[in-house]
């Protein structure tokens, strides 16, 4: 019996174990199943994450390439890891990436705005990577391209750090402000030019005033003459404004000076533009001639007339500007004995600025005044403003 009982007992425990084992197996299968499900879920999840990551990466890549801002990044030792199209455009070249590549920047040369060279090891990227500066914000730098052209850029650099705060690289964003700088420069230059022209004009007024108020005539008369001469100067400025500051038309100056007796003058001539200096002198010439005519000449009597004509003779470098003021119908002509400031303007100023000695002919019929000068010398300078700044040659200013 004990044998049978023992066996039975054994059978029972084995059965129990078997049951337990079956239960265990079940459990394990369950676990395995759930693990499988989780694994599958995870795979799906990871795939989703990967897809999302790729999409995000794609988005940033597009942004990186498409954005108007130039971007590049470096690793900790300063090797260029990536750069976008705009960066390459502004550098004027594509740097070699990685181990064999250049360090810190894709530009051939960098300069401070004042023109001093920035050595690569002292550039913003290098200083951020070394931790010498925490970041760079809106720093102006001049980039020289391989073809020698220069662009002004504004640079911002931020370091990249790992979880321990160690700098692992840096990203550099920059954009082109060359056009803005040029516009600012141009504006500054134009304002300077305006101030200088104003001062030059005042110097002329000073000369006219001191010569006119010489005390040889009653003050009231001199004051009137001065006022008229300043008006003539103003007329030359008006004609220049009409000519877009590039030059003044002969016809415009004549029209402005002869407005008050336009019914008694015949005016004819082709379009000729005079440069600033000559326009001013020419306005004085027409003014002095008409003043004299009104006082002593053809315009002092009702029947008197003035013919103002000009022409261009010849072409090219030898072309000449011929101007004539012819009075008729006036009182008998008496050559003046006094050689005042007016005469000085009509003779010496014209001789100097037009480059040709004018002729006075005191004919019985009336005064004839003629200028015969090389056209090239009177013509409008081609953007004299720009050339003056460069200290270059400006034709006959």
């Amino acid at each position, binding site marked *: 019996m004990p044998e049978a009982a023992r066996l039975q007992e054994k059978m029972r425990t084995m059965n129990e174990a078997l049951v337990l084992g079956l239960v265990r197996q079940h459990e394990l299968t369950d676990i395995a199943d759930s693990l499988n499900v989780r694994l599958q879920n995870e795979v799906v999840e990871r795939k989703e994450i990967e897809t999302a990551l790729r999409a995000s990466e794609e988005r940033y890549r597009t942004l990186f390439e498409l954005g108007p801002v130039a971007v590049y990044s470096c690793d900790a030792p300063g090797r260029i890891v990536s750069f976008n199209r705009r960066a390459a455009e502004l550098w004027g070249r594509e740097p070699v990436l990685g181990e064999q590549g250049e360090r810190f920047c894709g530009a051939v040369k960098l300069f401070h705005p004042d023109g001093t060279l920035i050595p690569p090891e002292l550039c913003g990227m290098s200083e951020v990577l070394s931790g010498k500066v925490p970041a760079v914000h809106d720093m102006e730098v001049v980039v020289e391209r391989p073809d020698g052209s220069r662009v002004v850029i504004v640079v911002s650099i931020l370091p990249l750090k790992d979880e321990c705060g160690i700098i692992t690289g840096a990203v550099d964003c920059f954009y082109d402000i060359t056009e803005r700088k040029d516009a600012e420069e141009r504006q500054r230059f134009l304002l300077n030019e305006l101030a200088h022209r104003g*001062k030059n004009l005042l*110097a002329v007024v000073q000369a006219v005033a001191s010569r006119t108020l010489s005390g040889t005539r009653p003050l009231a008369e001199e004051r009137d003459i001065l006022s008229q001469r300043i008006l003539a100067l103003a007329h030359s400025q008006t004609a220049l404004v009409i000519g877009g500051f590039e030059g003044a038309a002969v016809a415009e100056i004549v029209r402005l000076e002869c407005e008050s007796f336009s019914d008694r003058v015949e005016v004819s001539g082709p379009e000729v533009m005079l440069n600033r*200096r000559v326009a001013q002198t020419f306005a004085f010439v027409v003014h002095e001639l008409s003043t004299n005519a009104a006082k002593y000449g053809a315009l002092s009597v009702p029947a008197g007339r003035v013919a103002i004509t000009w022409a261009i003779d010849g072409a090219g470098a030898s072309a000449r500007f011929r101007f004539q003021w012819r009075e008729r119908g006036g009182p008998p002509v008496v050559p003046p004995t006094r050689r005042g400031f007016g005469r000085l303007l009509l003779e010496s*100023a014209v001789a100097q600025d037009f480059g040709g000695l004018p002729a006075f002919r005191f004919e019985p019929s009336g005064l004839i005044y003629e200028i015969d000068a090389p056209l090239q010398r009177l013509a409008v300078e081609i953007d004299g403003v720009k*050339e003056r700044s460069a*200290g270059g040659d400006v034709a*006959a*200013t």
Partner: protein
Amino acid sequence: MAFEGRRVLVVEDEFLVALTMIDFLEPLGCEVVGPAASLPVALELARSEPLDAAVLDMNIAGAMIWPVARALRRRRVPFVFLSAYCDLEVVSGPFAATPCLEKPLEQSRLLRHLHAIWDAPQRSSARLQSATPSSAPSPRR
């Protein structure tokens, strides 16, 4: 007269401004050499004429006056600039220490400079010619 017989070269391309210079200098007793209205004429006068001083417009018919200034410096003729461009950086380099008078002409200022040049020749000429290349600031940019 204060400056009887002093010969002053005037370089000025604006006829009326040159006239102002003559009107100012001649009553002082000065003899005006020129006025020269172009660079070649100015250069010729600066090299050949006996001169005691010079007043130079900086921009002469579109060209800068520097060759004339160099010629005068070689001959140790003191000079001042008269220009509407004094504030520009063009007055840098070897002539940075040369006085530059603004246009329009301030007569009393020019008179002071002429006194400085002629009344104390040693000191004034040293002052006016102190801009030797070594002491001149290096050109910027």
